[in-house]
């Protein structure tokens, strides 16, 4: 259909003109000023384009919203709906764009979006990590020393928001977008433009959060508790807009994943043949699609309280700070499983490959993923056991929280029994997966203390809980994130990554990670509160130990970044199509994967875990012939 010749070598200046990131940034800045001055035209008593004008909350909010609209317009998100409104047929141009330029514009090829996500999320992950280094620098001494008090809180808040906001899409963004259509035998995601939209909204959100420093930062940490939220300066608006945009991105991403997996599976790919990774993505996507809207609504209420004088959360005027806590954690607890579940799925997906055995207890593993997904809705008040809300419901939330270890245990037993009597290869991705067991075990066992109300009285709000969720999220999500990078990036880029460098990275990161976070359990048990800039003198040695280890951890990530970029940009050693001898379908495709994935849609006859069950592949390319959609 699209036979127009694409000239891939026009001069550089010509290539910069059009709908792309550059135009997006220019229109974004323009939109920002339109919103800013527009709001002033409505609400300010006087308007001066060059002198000082009255500051108001509304102008800032509208400025950022104008900026987002301008940014998305510049990227070309209005082209398709406008063209359709004017009666033009739909086209595949957004997908078939060639060259490096497609990574800097609206591209509807799910493989391009996956790689965009990988770099975009990676960028913000490193910014978040840098903030962690600053926090540990401040905590080298028990008293206040490096940063002004407000700056320190902003650093803590940006670190938390960056990690809890951007990293929610850390697996689903890069890897599910790239792999789910391949794994289910489809040529695209269900909603390719929405898929691209989720990425660019997320990038806009990340930038908005960074700009909080121009408005004085925000003092609340990533939870944004009321009524401190209402009291805070304009930097708070950046947090609210950031997280609301992240929520919108997550909702759309979740819906897109659910619809894709439910409706676009190739013939023969029944629910019991679906790769376990797809099950993990599905259970995560359900949480995203249902929990993230709660976040968007909650933050909208907070924004109304700040901007247009409503009183949802102001106790003296009939509101309640409990309302915010409740709404936030109704989102917030599914949120932490949005972070954890993809890790479970990655571990279960890779163990069969590197133990050369079928996934043990497939149905139990699926039940575990779905069970966690379901139970995570009934546990949120364990975050507010000592808040004074619903004192009589605490035994229920203690029970529901502890029940969630049962489906989590399913993942453990299925993983462990998959290793049992296997033929285990210690490749880099396998090492990261095995580290998941260790980290998540410590994270889970420490969670027992936090779920138990009497014990939680002491551990809540201390470094113990902070160590706990770093073990589950960094130890669970980030370690599997790297497993996924080492496992799938050779497929995604066609470039092989060095096993030796990968193993150095692994051991460095694993040891530094445990040396950083294990002592924090002790520090929390000894009574150091989170997010406080001061601590008892007697805890200085442990804190210094943690800080030094954290710097080593930071360096291990820099080492990864340097070796990763060096290998992709300079060494460029071509990867085999199936470097791990995996039976999974994505590794049976040529590298790089063709734009439309399959010449003929595959027909599946079993799950991809038939190790030791004979050479018959789990699928044949016998379905519908090449047509593009």
């Amino acid at each position, binding site marked *: 259909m699209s036979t127009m010749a694409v000239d891939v070598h026009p001069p550089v200046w010509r290539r910069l003109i059009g709908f792309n990131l550059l135009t997006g940034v220019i229109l974004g800045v323009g939109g920002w000023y339109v919103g800013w001055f527009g709001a002033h035209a409505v609400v300010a008593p006087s308007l001066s384009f060059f002198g000082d004008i009255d500051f108001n909350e509304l102008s800032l909010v509208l400025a950022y919203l104008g900026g987002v609209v301008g940014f998305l317009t510049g990227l070309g998100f209005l082209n398709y709906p406008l063209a359709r409104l004017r009666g033009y047929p739909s086209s595949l141009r957004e997908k078939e764009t060639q060259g490096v330029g497609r990574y800097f514009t609206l591209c509807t090829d799910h493989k391009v979006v996956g790689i965009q996500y990988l770099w975009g999320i990676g960028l913000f992950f490193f910014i978040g990590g840098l903030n962690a280094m600053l926090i540990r620098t401040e905590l080298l001494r028990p008293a206040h020393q490096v940063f002004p*008090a407000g700056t320190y*809180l902003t650093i803590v808040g940006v670190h938390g928001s960056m990690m809890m906001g951007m990293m929610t899409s850390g697996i689903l963004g890069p890897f599910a977008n790239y792999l789910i259509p391949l794994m289910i035998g489809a040529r695209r995601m269900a909603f390719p433009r929405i898929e691209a939209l989720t990425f660019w909204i997320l990038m806009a959100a990340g930038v908005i959060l960074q700009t909080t420093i121009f408005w004085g930062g925000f*003092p609340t*940490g990533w939870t944004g*508790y009321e*009524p*401190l939220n*209402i009291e805070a300066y304009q930097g708070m608006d950046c947090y609210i807009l950031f997280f609301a945009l992240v929520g919108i991105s997550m909702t759309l991403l979740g819906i897109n994943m659910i619809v894709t997996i439910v409706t676009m599976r190739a013939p023969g790919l029944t629910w019991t043949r679906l790769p376990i990774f797809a099950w993990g993505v599905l259970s995560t996507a359900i949480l995203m699609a249902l929990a993230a809207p709660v976040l968007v609504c909650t933050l909208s209420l907070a924004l109304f*309280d700040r*901007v*247009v004088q409503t009183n949802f959360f102001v*106790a003296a005027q009939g509101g*309640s*700070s409990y309302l915010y806590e409740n709404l936030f954690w109704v989102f917030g607890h599914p949120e932490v499983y949005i972070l954890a579940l993809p890790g479970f799925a990655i571990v279960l997906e890779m163990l069969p490959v590197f*133990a*050369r055995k079928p996934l*043990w*207890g*497939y149905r*139990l593993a699926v039940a575990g993923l779905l069970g966690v997904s379901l139970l995570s809705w009934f546990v949120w008040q364990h975050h*507010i056991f*000592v*808040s*004074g*809300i*619903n*004192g*009589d419901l605490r035994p229920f939330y203690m029970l529901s929280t502890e*029940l969630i*270890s*049962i489906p989590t245990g*399913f993942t453990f*037993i299925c993983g462990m029994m998959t*290793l049992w*009597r*296997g*033929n*285990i*290869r210690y490749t880099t991705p396998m090492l990261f997966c095995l580290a998941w*067991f*260790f980290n998540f*075990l410590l994270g889970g*066992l420490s969670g*027992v203390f936090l779920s*138990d*109300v*009497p*014990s939680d*009285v*002491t551990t809540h*709000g*201390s470094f113990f809980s902070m160590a706990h969720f770093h073990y589950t999220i960094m130890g669970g999500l980030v370690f599997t994130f790297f497993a996924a990078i080492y496992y799938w990036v050779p497929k995604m880029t066609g470039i092989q990554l060095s096993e030796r460098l990968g193993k150095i990275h692994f051991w460095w990161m694993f040891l530094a990670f445990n040396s950083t976070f294990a002592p924090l359990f002790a520090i929390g048990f000894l009574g150091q*509160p989170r997010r*406080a*800039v*001061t601590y008892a003198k007697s805890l200085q040695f442990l804190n210094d130990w943690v800080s030094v280890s954290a710097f080593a951890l930071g360096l291990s990530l820099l080492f990864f970044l340097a070796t990763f970029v060096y290998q992709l940009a300079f060494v460029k050693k071509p990867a085999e199509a199936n470097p791990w*001898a995996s039976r999974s379908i994505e590794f049976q495709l040529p590298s790089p994967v063709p734009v439309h994935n399959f010449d003929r849609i595959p027909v599946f006859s079993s799950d991809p875990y038939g190790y*030791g069950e*004979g*050479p018959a592949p789990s699928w044949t390319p016998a379905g519908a012939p090449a047509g593009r959609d």
Partner: protein
Amino acid sequence: MATHPTTAAPGADRAPHGRRVIVAWLVLSIVATPLVAIFLGPILPPGNASVQGSGQVVDNTVLTATITPVFCLLLVFFVYVLTRFRAAPATALEDGPPLRNHNGIQVTWIVVTTVVVLSLAGFGTFELLQNGSGGGQGPSPVAVPAGADHMMQVQVIGQQWNWTYRYPGYGGIETQDLYLPENTYVVLNVTSLDVIHSFWAYALGVKADANPGVDNVAYLKTKGPRSFEIRCAELCGLWHGYMYQTGHIVPQSQFAAWIKQQQTLNASIARYMPKYSRSYYPDPQRRGG
């Protein structure tokens, strides 16, 4: 690359792997669990300065002892599996036995984890309901220790960025320092004037959020005289990190003397102070528009 080389003949490896792991686990657990309970238990937080604190130490000891065998199981399992089933370079791509399921193992695992989890929840509930465990329970507490009607009341008021205390049993006087008599049951009524704070007396095992407009009740029975640190455990703005104090548990006679002195100090300012109330509604600090 040959993706599907020869499959190991099923049942070729008849070594009693399962029995070895279970025996090693049992031995390790039986040795480690009592050691953990005896040596680690007593140093677990938050210490024995109050009845509630001691209760938490018991709780933490039981939890630590419970998770020890779990930790041992995974430790033994992984050490065994990762050494014993390591691939030799020559046969690295040989497939293992295609074990897909085992109903006995599944059922055992589900039953055991369920029993452990339910016991933990039951134990936690029992401990909580005994004396409230020092946690904030809100305005209508459920875990009320016997004799709550006759306890000494102390109101804890959080504001940015300090704690003050009112003693309704002594005319609602307000003090800058927290003094409590020894061996006494105390009701803490925690509230806030502005944002959410959290009153945390670590050594006493007490933590209760201070919410504006809410009376958050926590119970506490002091033991012998000592000092203790008070911190704010909920991020409350700019000087959150400096919201700490030292409180004191003192002998009854010394407490009586102290409260008398405070009453004298308060006499001159009493008429300016708001009447004692479960909560206060100062004008909220809000900006915006």
